[in-house]
């Protein structure tokens, strides 16, 4: 962590972080231009800061179209910020069940390196069961811990398959790359927020949701992540 840095230095770092974060989100939406970034940033000096960042070699600006793109180091840094922010959002919404509006403010504070270091972020990520998206459905960049899918920290959020028979749990997220699967599950009422009860595991999984009993394959159950209640 950057304890050795002066307060001014840290402030400067935070401003850069904020701008990189915004750039990342606008790139996600395909709208990252200098004008858009400056317009949406809360930093009054955003335009000049963008130029500074470009000179640090973090981003590149196409001066013709005004399009902004990441250079490798900038992308890596932005990715970490986004990851911290979105993990923080998950933490606040799942564990502390903070209201949406407040969640945003807190997450913004937690996203800086001097608040949440890499090790802490990875632990939280593991604790939450390596969520693929933030509560708003945006992607959380994967960290080292996700690649290993480590379980050193006892996760708060785990796969449905980790529940014991008879336990009740709330669905936190469904991590499937198959669109049809998500569509089908949601048409049966299996969405984040639904409360389910595990009825049996053999010969297939049976869960109870409301007054409905559903049988489903283990493959699917593995992709449904829940928090015990």
């Amino acid at each position, binding site marked *: 962590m950057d304890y050795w840095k002066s307060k001014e230095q840290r402030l400067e770092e935070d401003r850069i972080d904020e701008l990189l974060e915004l750039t990342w989100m606008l790139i996600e939406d395909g709208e990252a231009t200098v004008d858009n970034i400056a317009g949406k940033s809360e930093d009054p000096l955003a335009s000049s800061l963008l130029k500074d960042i470009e000179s640090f070699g973090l981003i590149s600006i196409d001066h013709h179209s005004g399009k902004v793109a990441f250079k490798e180091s900038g992308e890596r840094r932005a990715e970490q910020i986004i990851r911290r922010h979105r993990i923080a959002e998950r933490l606040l919404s799942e564990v502390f069940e903070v209201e949406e509006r407040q969640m945003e403010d807190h997450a913004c504070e937690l996203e800086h390196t001097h608040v949440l270091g890499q090790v802490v972020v990875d632990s939280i990520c593991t604790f939450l069961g390596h969520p693929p998206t933030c509560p708003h459905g945006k992607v959380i960049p994967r960290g080292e811990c996700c690649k290993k899918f480590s379980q050193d920290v006892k996760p708060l959020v785990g796969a449905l398959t980790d529940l014991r028979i008879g336990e009740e749990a709330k669905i936190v997220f469904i991590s499937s790359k198959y669109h049809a699967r998500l569509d089908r599950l949601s048409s049966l009422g299996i969405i984040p927020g639904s409360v389910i009860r595990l009825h049996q595991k053999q010969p297939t999984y049976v869960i109870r949701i409301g007054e409905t009993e559903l*049988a489903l394959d283990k493959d699917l159950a593995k992709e449904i992540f829940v928090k015990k209640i």
Partner: protein
Amino acid sequence: MHHHGTEAIKAGEKIIIVGNPNVGKSVIFGLLTGRYADVSNYPGTTVTLTTGSYHMGGVDTLVIDTPGVNTLIPMSEDEVVTRDILINEPVKQIVQVVDAKNLSRGLVISIQLVEMGLPFVLVLNMWDEANSRGINIDVEKLAAAIGTTVIPTVGVERKGLKELREALYKRSFPSIAINYGGAIENGIKRLESLLPEVNISKRAISLMLLAGDESLKPWLKGHVGINDIPKIESIRRDIQDKYYEPLGYIINQIRLKRCEKIIGDVLSKNQTDRSPITVHLGNWAMHPVWGIPVLLAVLFLTYEFVGVFGAQTLVDLLEHKLFGSYINPSMTRVVTLLIPDTFFRDLLIGEYGIITMALTYSIAIILPIVGTFFIAFGLLEDSGYLPRLAMMVNKIFKLMGLHGKAALPMVLGLGCDTMATLTARIMETRKERVIVTLLLALGVPCSAQLGVILGMLGGISFHVTLLWIFIVVLVLFLVGFMASKVIKGESSDFVFDIPPFRVPILTNILFKTLSRIKWYLKEAVPLFILGTLILFTLDKTGVLEVIEAVASPIVVGFLGLPQKATDAFLIGFLRRDYGAAGLYALAEAGELNPNQILVSLVTITLFVPCVANSMVMIKERGLKTAAAITAFIFPFAFLVGGVLNFVLNGFGIKL
């Protein structure tokens, strides 16, 4: 067995019944039209449209019963049927049937109906079950929240029917406005400008398109300019790019959240801790350990009722007492007296006579067997055992590139393969549908055939019956396994509703059995007569002898059966059960030993599908696939029979 023809749909405004699977749409349909539509306790009983009419304000209005859906963005062929009706048919009134204890799943459909801009009344069916589970719904509040008439009913007890009839006259166009957020709303606006005016709102169609509904493609081609189709796709992609998760999933989530909100205001729950015995029974039936003895008990009881009581006691009563001692002798006397000509006399009472063969087989042998089978099958259907069975066998079906849901069409095949082939629509991918069709055509004996077979095997022993089941199941499994490797395509996920276990209602069983027997008499008996006429002609012209001689190396040499068995296989081309009945008669006459009975039964079980089934195969899967399936089955059936004969004799096994 769902024998109501899907008649061409007449013009004019209609009453359309929609709802989730297994909520009692067909019961409500029956109450309105007085027509019996097949009613059971598992999702997917109705896969095609059933129509009837309802006298309303001096005019006969067409009522359509549709296959159940969980969303109007279809994922399987039966769901497409329902969505298409809503898009294409002018609507007088929609009756949305909801399972009162699963309100949220019903409301998701309500929201979509609202978005389509269609008038509807909401029927909260199974009101009694919801109450007994401590669920209270404030009907008036719910009606106000949606803006339409809400009627609690207990369909099977006709409760709430009067209120429903009155409500049909009142068309209300409810309004629940949902905002899907900036990006999606923007997409809706852009899509709406490209769409034509149709029955349902452009907003609803736009949402379907955004959700990526592939099944709308053919419809689009007929309604949108050629150049607009790629535009629509690019708008969709544009909006999708703004989200990580698929749009369909996001839209569903927003709808469900809205439903939960409505429900929060209208629904309250009391604790009830008594759970009736049916709950325990239902749990045992799908328990990993107890499920197996339950399955065996079900098999054994079915065998006792159909194979022993139906196929022996009742057949004995009808065939020997009624036909053998009364009808056939007296008919013979009458015919001999009236018709001097031997040719016409033989036509009625000869070896291949209409009375002595066609009617004796169909009425005296098969009818009592299918009758008892229909009763047993109806009990299984209405109890809710079949979905639990599907769950138990899921893993086995996985090895065949299918999953547990495929057990439903397969078990229904035991009723009638033709209808079961239609039910294959509940499978989501083409590969799954083709494999199910193949297995049904290959080796799932229909009720009539099964009955005759059980009757013959019952004459030997329960062990041989088990051996026959084992061989047929093994062959089905191996073929399924190979087919899953050969046939290209994907398999779908197994997510499956398990309805509550219920005590079957006797009147429904009675209705179902009677309407199935009626269907059997209407459809099977004429074919039996036709088959007899063919045999009669072949016999009189001497062709039969030639065929028997030609088939002799296979039937006699390879299968080790008497030459007479050729007749059974010949009529087996028309209907496998008729072929089985021919074998039955041979066995009764003492011309088959137990080994021969087993070999001939395995062969006839795997024999080519009947004419009706072939027609449906062509209609559902296309001529090429149907032809390929038949071309495989015909030699394969003899091959398996021959191998079995060889193994039995090779090891000197005497059954």
